[in-house]
C-alpha cells in the first residue's frame, strides 16, 4: 500500500507512539500502529472525527500467560476488567479527541498570527473547488500574549525603497479598505479597523536626502501618493516640529496611517473559520520527513527532503498527535527560526545550501505611551526622526505612542517581554524632545514590549519554498513590517502553493535561496 511505502522513515516514530494518544481501531492485536488502515478505513471528509474507537481495549498485562501460581489473583483481576467493560464501569469504547488536531491535513500552517491566517484565507479563496484543500492552523498560544501581531503599533506605509515592498503594501491597504467585502461573514457585524489615514512623515538629514529623493521616485512609479517637503513647508504645515538638521521630508498623502491589528486578526480568524479551516491549539515539536538522494543535471549529489508528518503537542500535556500533511507553511513569526531548525534546515556544513540556516530571530522592541498636554494636534502623522525614534498620536486625549530601534550593541535580551524604562529616558526621550519641543514635558503612562521577527540577513521577509525541503513554505522574517504586508504576502504564498509561481506580485527577491547566494534584498534607509 502506498501508505506502507511511506512508513519506512518512521523508526523512532514507532517507539514514540507509546506515549501517543489512543490510536484508531486498526491496532487490534498488531504491534504499535503500522497505521496502515485507520479504523474502518473511512477517511474523514469535511470535519474531522472527534471520537475514535479505542484500540486495544483495557490492558491485559499478563495476557496469555496463564501459567502456574496466583490463580485467585488472576480471577479477581479478570472480574475487575469485566466490570469495567459493563455499563457503569470506567472503560468506554469511545474517547474524546476533540482537543487534538485531525490525523490528516493537506496543509499545516505553523503559527496563527496575522500572516498565518492570511495564508489560510487566500488558500481557501484561491482553491479551485470549494472544500478542495484541508487546511490546519496550529497556534501555540490562543491568547496571543506574545504574538507580534497584537503588540504592534499598527502602522501601514508605502514609503519603502524596494518596489516589491511598495506593491505589497499597496495591495494590503486596498485589502484593508475593502475589508468588509473580503472578510464578510454572513450574519456577523462588519469590522471596524479604526484606520487613521494620517500618513507617515519621514525626516531626512543632509546625508539621507538623496536616498530619500530616489526612494520617493520609486514609490511614485509604483503608484504611492507621497510628496516631498522642504524645511520651510514643513514648518508651515506642522509648526510644532523643530526642523533643525532636517534637509528633506517625505509625507504620505493617502493610504498610509495606522489601524487596530487585533481587529484584523479577529476578522481573519472569523472568516477563515467560516471557510472551513481547522484550528488547533498546540505546539509543533517534530517533523517526520523522508529523504531522496538525487543528482542534478551537472552530476552534483543533492538530498531532497519531504515532510510527511507534523507532530503537534497539546498544551500542558505529553499528548501529541502526528498530523499527516502534504505541505507545511512556516508562519511562526519570531520563532520561525526554531521551526526551520526542527525541519532540518541549516544542518550541514556551513557555506553549503544544506548548511544555510533561516536567519530569523526574535528581537525585542519597546513601545511607550505618554501624555503631553501641549503636544501636536489632530493632524500629526507618524513621524520618524533620522535618529530612529518615531511617535504617533493615539486617540483624542493628547496621548502619543512611540519608540526607537536600538543599535546592534544595545539589543535587549529577547528571553522575556519585560520593559526597560531607562531606555526611554536615555535613548528615546532626548531625540523626541529635540524634534518636538513640546515633548520636553511629558509623562509616560504605559509601556509594553513585543518581538520583531528579525531577519538578520537583510531585514526583509522570506517568502516561498525552501530549495531542499521541498514542501516547506516560508512566510516569516518581516522585521517589523509583517502586519502591513500580511494580506499581500498571504496571497503570494497561496499562489506559489497552488500555481507554482508568483502571479500578482513577484516576490522572487524574497526567496530563501538568496541567503545561500548572498543576494541581499535590503531597504535603503535614510538614517
Amino acid at each position: 500500500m502506498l501508505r506502507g511505502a511511506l512508513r519506512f522513515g518512521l523508526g523512532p516514530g514507532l517507539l514514540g507512539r507509546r506515549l501517543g494518544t489512543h490510536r484508531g481501531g486498526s491496532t487490534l492485536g498488531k504491534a504499535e500502529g503500522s497505521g496502515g488502515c485507520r479504523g474502518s478505513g473511512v477517511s474523514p471528509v469535511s470535519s474531522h472525527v472527534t471520537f475514535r474507537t479505542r484500540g486495544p481495549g483495557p490492558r491485559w498485562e499478563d495476557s496469555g500467560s496463564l501459567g502456574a501460581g496466583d490463580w485467585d489473583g488472576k480471577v479477581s483481576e479478570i472480574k475487575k476488567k469485566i466490570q469495567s467493560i459493563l455499563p457503569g464501569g470506567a472503560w468506554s469504547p469511545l474517547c474524546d479527541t476533540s482537543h487534538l488536531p485531525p490525523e490528516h491535513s493537506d496543509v499545516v500552517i505553523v503559527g496563527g498570527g496575522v500572516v498565518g491566517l492570511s495564508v489560510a484565507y487566500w488558500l481557501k479563496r484561491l482553491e479551485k473547488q470549494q472544500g478542495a484543500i484541508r487546511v490546519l492552523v496550529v497556534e501555540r498560544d490562543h491568547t496571543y500574549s506574545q504574538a507580534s501581531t497584537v503588540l504592534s503599533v499598527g502602522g501601514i506605509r508605502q514609503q519603502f525603497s524596494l518596489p516589491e515592498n511598495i506593491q505589497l503594501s499597496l495591495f494590503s491597504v486596498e485589502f484593508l479598505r475593502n475589508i468588509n467585502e473580503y472578510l464578510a461573514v454572513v450574519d456577523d457585524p462588519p469590522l471596524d479597523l479604526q484606520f487613521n489615514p494620517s500618513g507617515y512623515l519621514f525626516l531626512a538629514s543632509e546625508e539621507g536626502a538623496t536616498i530619500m529623493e530616489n526612494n520617493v521616485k520609486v514609490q511614485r512609479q509604483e503608484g504611492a501618493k507621497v510628496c516631498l517637503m522642504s524645511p520651510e513647508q514643513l514648518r508651515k504645515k506642522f509648526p510644532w516640529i523643530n526642523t533643525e538638521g532636517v534637509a528633506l521630508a517625505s509625507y504620505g498623502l493617502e493610504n498610509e496611517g495606522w489601524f487596530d491589528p487585533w481587529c484584523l486578526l479577529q476578522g481573519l480568524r472569523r472568516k477563515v473559520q467560516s471557510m472551513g479551516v481547522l484550528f488547533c491549539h498546540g505546539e509543533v515539536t517534530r517533523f517526520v520527513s523522508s529523504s531522496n538522494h538525487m543528482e542534478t543535471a551537472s552530476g552534483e549529489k543533492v538530498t531532497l527532503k519531504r515532510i510527511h508528518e507534523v507532530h503537534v503537542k497539546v498544551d500542558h500535556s505529553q499528548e501529541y498527535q502526528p498530523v499527516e500533511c502534504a505541505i507545511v507553511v512556516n508562519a511562526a513569526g519570531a520563532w520561525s527560526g526554531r521551526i526551520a531548525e526542527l525541519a532540518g534546515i541549516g544542518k550541514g556544513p556551513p557555506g553549503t545550501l544544506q548548511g544555510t540556516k533561516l536567519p530569523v530571530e526574535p528581537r525585542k522592541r519597546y513601545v511607550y505611551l505618554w501624555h503631553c498636554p501641549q503636544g501636536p494636534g489632530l493632524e500629526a502623522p507618524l513621524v520618524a526622526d533620522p535618529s530612529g525614534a518615531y511617535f504617533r498620536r493615539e486617540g483624542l486625549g493628547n496621548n502619543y505612542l512611540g519608540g526607537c530601534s536600538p543599535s546592534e550593541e544595545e539589543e535587549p535580551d529577547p528571553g522575556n517581554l519585560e520593559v526597560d524604562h531607562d531606555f526611554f529616558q536615555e535613548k528615546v526621550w532626548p531625540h523626541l524632545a529635540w524634534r518636538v519641543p513640546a515633548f520636553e514635558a511629558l509623562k509616560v503612562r504605559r509601556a509594553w514590549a513585543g518581538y520583531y521577527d528579525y531577519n538578520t540577513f537583510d531585514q526583509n521577509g522570506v517568502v516561498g519554498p525552501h530549495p531542499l525541503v521541498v514542501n516547506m513554505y516560508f512566510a516569516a522574517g518581516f522585521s517589523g513590517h509583517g502586519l502591513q504586508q500580511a494580506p499581500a504576502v498571504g496571497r503570494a504564498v497561496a499562489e506559489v502553493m497552488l500555481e507554482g509561481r508568483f502571479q500578482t506580485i513577484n516576490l522572487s527577491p524574497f526567496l530563501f535561496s538568496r541567503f545561500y547566494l548572498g543576494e541581499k534584498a535590503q531597504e535603503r534607509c535614510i538614517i
Partner: protein
Amino acid sequence: MAAPRASLRLVAPVWNGGTSGIRGLSRAVDPEGSQRKGRALLQFLADRFYDVEAVRGYLLQKQVLKVLQKNRFQDKEWMRPNGRGLSGELWKLREVPVEAVDASGCAINYQGLDNLLALRELQSLSLRCCPHVDDWCLGRLHQLADSLRELSLAGCPRISERGLACLHHLRNLRRLDISDLPAVSNPGLTQILVEEMLPDCEVLGADRAQSLKLGPEEQPRDTASSPIPA
C-alpha cells in the same frame, strides 16, 4: 476666464427611484436590521453547513457589488437626471468648470469619488448623509486642496474623528460642517481639535445643530443677565 461662472448645482439623478435602493443597500451593510423570523432559520443552517454559508456569502457579495456599479462614471450617464431633463443644457455647459456639487444622500463611495476629484475648480462640496462615505474617502480629498472652500459632511454615518484628521490638507477651507456624525466618539472635543487644526475655517458642529432645533424664541438671551441691585 471667458465662460460665465455658472455655479452648477449638480444634483445626482433618479433619487426618488433610488432611495429605497439606498436603504436596501444600507441594510446590506448593517445586518442588525434584519432580525426577521426567516433569517433565524437561515442563520441556524448557515452555522451548521458550510454550503449554506457559502451561498449566503455569495448573495451578500452581490448586494455589496451593487454599490460599486452605481459609482461607475460612464461619460454623461452619472449626470443624467430622470427623463430628458438637463442633458441638452449639460452638453453646452461642459466647458464650464464645475464649482459646486451637491451629492447629498448619494451612494457615492471610494471609487465613485474619482468623478468628483477630477473637478479641479470645485469650491463647494456637499456630502451630507452619504451612507458610504467613510474615513478612507476623506483621505482622498487632499486633491481638492487648492480650490475647496466649503465642505459639508453632516449626517454621514461612517465618518469618525480619524477621518476628520486628514482634512488639514484643505488649507483654503472656510466653512466645514461636521454636525450630526454618529460615529464620532466625542463630538465636542473633536470640534475643538478640528478648529485648532484649521484655524482659518469656520467649523459647524453638533452644538449649532442642537441650537437650531431649539428655535429662535428659546435661544438663551445674552441680555438676560439683569443688573445687580445695588
